């Protein structure tokens, strides 16, 4: 019940914020700009789909910053070598899933704290992205690839549709499959889930691999939007993705949080950045703001539940 009231409050707050933004910034509430906001939020939103599941099982995935650079770098380099686009994209996705699986292995089999494992894997990915083209960015991709990022389908940007599809997959897994139930149970109480005879390690592997998959899609979409892959392009998206989940009510105490709400959180972050852009606020100041928001929201929301598990 409390959760439902929370969600309604969240929704009303969101609407109020949008209305306020519309009054404040004349261009904000135009259909073209709103579609643009969704397009800009799609990277964060897609990342947040995977991140939600990871946070639900009491983990964190800091490797997405590196993967958002590495995966499109793999795809992009292959494409420029003349490999068919589809195969190049699949190769990039496989790189993401592979790195995610590695995260999962370290967390599940070796009990390494997630923030260490994923930090290291993220840096390795970042390093690989730098090595692959000696630190230079690549660009000039085939038109059909760039279309993924910039084209429209019946007037709706392909980026927005991709976000919807990824959100749909996330919602389906978490809310309509036994795996989803187990993921929430695992975040609630790992010991009990283990005693039930559920394959906990396999579940963790799946969740981290899925997060790697989401990061690869986000990275590939970003590179298609910009027609460029820069080897450190993932950096700005890490904080925003975690912020999206946290704002969407995904609890760092594990066991609760919805994919759709995290995507809504991504739209909020995207809107805030868009409004600040329209108001001419410096991006560095925006980072100061997002950094502050994330700390305050975690402090405010996870409060009651995290306190019980937090170190005294």
């Amino acid at each position, binding site marked *: 019940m409390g959760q439902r009231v929370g969600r309604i409050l969240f929704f009303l707050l969101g609407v109020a914020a949008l209305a306020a933004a519309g009054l404040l910034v004349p261009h904000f509430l135009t259909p073209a700009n709103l579609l643009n906001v969704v397009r800009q939020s799609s990277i964060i939103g897609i990342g947040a789909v995977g991140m939600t599941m990871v946070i639900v099982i009491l983990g964190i995935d800091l490797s997405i910053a590196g993967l958002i650079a590495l995966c499109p770098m793999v795809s992009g380099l292959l494409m420029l070598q003349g490999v068919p686009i589809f195969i190049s994209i699949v190769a990039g996705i496989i790189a993401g899933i592979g790195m995610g699986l590695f995260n999962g292995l370290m967390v599940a089999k070796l009990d390494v704290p997630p923030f260490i494992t994923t930090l*290291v894997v993220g840096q390795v990915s970042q390093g*690989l992205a730098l090595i692959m083209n*000696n630190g230079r960015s690549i660009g000039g991709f085939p038109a059909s690839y760039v279309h993924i990022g910039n084209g429209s389908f019946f007037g709706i940007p392909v980026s927005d549709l991709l976000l919807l599809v990824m959100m749909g997959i996330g919602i389906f897994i978490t809310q309509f499959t036994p795996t989803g139930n187990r993921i929430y149970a695992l975040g609630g109480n790992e010991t009990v889930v283990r005693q039930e005879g559920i394959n906990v390690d396999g579940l963790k592997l799946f969740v981290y691999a899925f997060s790697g998959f989401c990061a690869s899609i986000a990275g590939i979409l970003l590179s298609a939007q910009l027609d460029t892959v820069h080897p450190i392009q993932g950096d700005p998206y890490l904080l925003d993705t975690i912020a999206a989940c946290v704002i969407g009510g995904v609890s760092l105490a594990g066991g609760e949080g919805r994919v759709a709400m995290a995507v809504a959180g991504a739209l909020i972050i995207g809107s805030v950045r868009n409004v600040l852009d329209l108001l001419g606020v410096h991006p560095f100041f925006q980072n*100061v703001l997002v950094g502050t928001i*994330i700390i305050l929201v975690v402090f405010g929301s996870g409060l009651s539940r*995290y306190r019980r598990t*937090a170190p*005294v």
Partner: protein
Amino acid sequence: MRGIIQTTLKSGSVVILVLLVLVGIVFVRNFASVDNAAVIVRQSAIPAIAVLGMTMVLMTGGIDLSLGFVVGLASTATGFMAKVWGLPVGLTVAATLLLGALVGLVNGVIIQYMKVPSFITTLGTGYILYGISQLVSAGNVITRLPPSLLAVGRTDLLGFPTSVYIAAGIIALGWFLIHKSVFGRTLSAFGFNSRAAFLSGLPTARANVLTYVLCSSLAALAGLLLTIRVNAAQPNMGGGVFTFEVITAAIVGGTSLFGGVGSVIGSLFGVLIIKVIENCINLMNISYHLYLAVQGGIILTVIVMDKIRSRAA
């Protein structure tokens, strides 16, 4: 003394360092020279200061992802105070360290009293600090700092700059603090089991906050000395790459990923290990970008080896 030798041998970092040096001597041209050894010592001094703080934070079971951005903030602040405002050296140094302590206090209070996990807190404050440094510096790099400031870290004593001696002093102090003081034991107890430590009446809250204060102060000192070494103050100094370097050194040096265990000597060897690798990469003239990936590979190897060993035991 025997205790030190035993703990270092157990952490395995000595073995890795010896192997690396042997590989360097055999395979890398110009590696085996007194001059090059001195270069490695000089390059290790500044990260060795920062790694102390990270070791303590990891011992509590936390992490400080803002460390590299404190370095950038300290660098920007140092440049501003020394050149733009023209403050005297003593005041500049003191204010920079105080700024670091303040950042650490904010981190510590948010983590300890507001119960926000350390990786979220420091990720957030890291972005905030980087943003502030960029806004303050407005993209400018301040070069040609006053000679009186440069003298703090650059004065030559018996072939080494003062920054090496400062690092040695800090490491000695850190060794006493972590291995011989009540604070160090509280830190250990807190990292192993915070609840038990708290129930035993240890001042865990104070110790935890103080850890972050020390970590950021040391990071600020590292930023100050780094600025002096390259004679340029800018927000891009340090950053995520520096944070990762320091975390690598601490973990390779045998600091437990689960809190409780940390060794100053081990972390020092950790720094030497990554600096020897960096040195080899430079001498062999291969892409510097390899450095990040190699560091990651080393951490992963150490973690896996550690796990295998503890299972065998």
